[in-house]
């Protein structure tokens, strides 16, 4: 039996809004599935059923109520329960093992696009020139003209920002890649490039967990589909 990359076990998540009449929003419960290296699992469900929430729990951006999310590090053979390890460990996992493209793109003001893309590489010790070389390769591939490379993405269009974030998260090999609507703001040409990048990542052994509204893009990359409303792998 192949070793999974990520094991979600009976995950439950709700939001308690203390200042909005103390209402509790139950998002999902009893979510369990495994995802393996080299495959793409697409999360499916209607709006509000918790697809983005589930991805964020996997990134430790949200805290789950109960259950476990176990990441298996192929390099060291160690297993980490993302819902329980220390923040310091999460920072290390994010730096080295887990990529994440969020649906809403937060931009740090005044940092040039080139720097945004280079940062993860610099964080693991690449030289400025090597990082820049790789960044240029990806930015060119994603059709970001060089005149934008020294500008901060704050003034870019949604589609441009999305491509900057994709370039950043695909700059290094990552065993786990979490993608929240990576082609939402992209035209056909650029969506196709993102699909290519995902295929290449799978070939390199990455496990990809993604949300795609667009059925064509979903078809192009999904190996399996997990339905959140039914709580089962289809």
């Amino acid at each position, binding site marked *: 039996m192949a070793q999974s990359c990520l094991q979600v076990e009976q995950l439950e998540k709700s*939001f308690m*809004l203390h*200042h909005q009449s103390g209402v509790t929003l139950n998002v999902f419960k009893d979510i369990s599935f495994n995802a393996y290296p080299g495959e793409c699992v697409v999360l499916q469900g209607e709006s509000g059923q918790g697809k983005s929430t589930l991805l964020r729990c996997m990134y*430790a951006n949200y805290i789950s109520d109960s259950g476990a999310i176990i990441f298996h590090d192929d390099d060291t053979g160690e297993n980490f329960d993302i819902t329980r390890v220390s923040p*310091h460990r999460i*920072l290390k996992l994010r730096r080295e093992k887990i990529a994440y493209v969020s649906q809403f793109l937060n931009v740090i003001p005044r940092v040039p696009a080139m720097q945004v893309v280079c940062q993860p590489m610099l964080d693991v010790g690449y030289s400025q020139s090597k990082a820049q070389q790789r960044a240029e390769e990806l930015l060119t591939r994603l059709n970001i003209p060089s005149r934008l490379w020294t500008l901060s993405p704050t003034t870019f269009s949604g589609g441009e920002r999305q491509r900057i974030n994709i370039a950043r998260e695909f700059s290094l090999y990552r065993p786990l890649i979490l993608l929240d609507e990576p082609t939402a703001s992209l035209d056909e040409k650029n969506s196709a490039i993102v699909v290519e990048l995902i295929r290449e990542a799978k070939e390199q052994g990455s496990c990809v967990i993604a949300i795609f509204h667009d059925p064509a893009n979903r078809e192009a990359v999904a190996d399996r589909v997990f339905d959140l409303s039914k709580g089962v792998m289809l």
Partner: protein
Amino acid sequence: MMMQGAPEKAFEQPMLEVKGLTRLYGPNKGCQRIDFELYRGEILGIVGESGSGKSTLLRCLANLEKADHGQLLYQSPDQGQVELEKLAEAQRRSLMRSEWGIVHQNPRDGLHLDISAGANVCERLMGQGARHYGQIRARTKEWMQRVELDPARIDDKPAAFSGGMQQRLQIACNLVTSPRLLLMDEPTGGLDVSVQARLLDLLRQLVHELGVSVVLVTHDMGVARLLADRLLVMRHSEIIETGLTDQILDDPQMPYTQLLVSSIIRA
């Protein structure tokens, strides 16, 4: 299958471990039962409103106030593990000047306004044993440039600088001796918004480049979001929540944290 869950043994020694730090001057005034760890290269933000106790906490770390009780365990490269609260006063002060640094909210608290900018920087370098005048001056100019101060103003007195420039000078004075740990209290408080922005960018860049660990106190959640990796949220002298900055901002658990986060004006 070896499982790493809670409680996880540290895979890396924290640079600073604070245990049970308490300094109270009245019921819930000051700080109490403060526990946290700080790792190399990490920026820890301490946030909370006025009166939450965050400045008291920083002052205890900076040896500007004596804690009632608690432990401060620091990993010094030369001396190994040091219990700061047990150090003799002179040794504690020496540590503050060499391996640690502090950037005060008001630059006047961290600078001698009546001696030149160069002399301010020089004082720190000489405190570390530097003696060669030419070299000291060259390093000073280099650092002034790094914090975007005109090196030609090396002989001007800080009293003649703007608030933002004084703050940059304070930062240069601290970073010139490559400290391992930097304490910062509202480093951009009182500065104009545009000046704040540039200063924050500079801080972020320098801290990243040098791999300095930072404890940053701020009431400004925007500053915390920009600079900090992790946050401690304080209220009425206690830590009420702690976690990764993005997690605290995106999924705050405690009622007070939710209130604090909901009051940030998002760009």
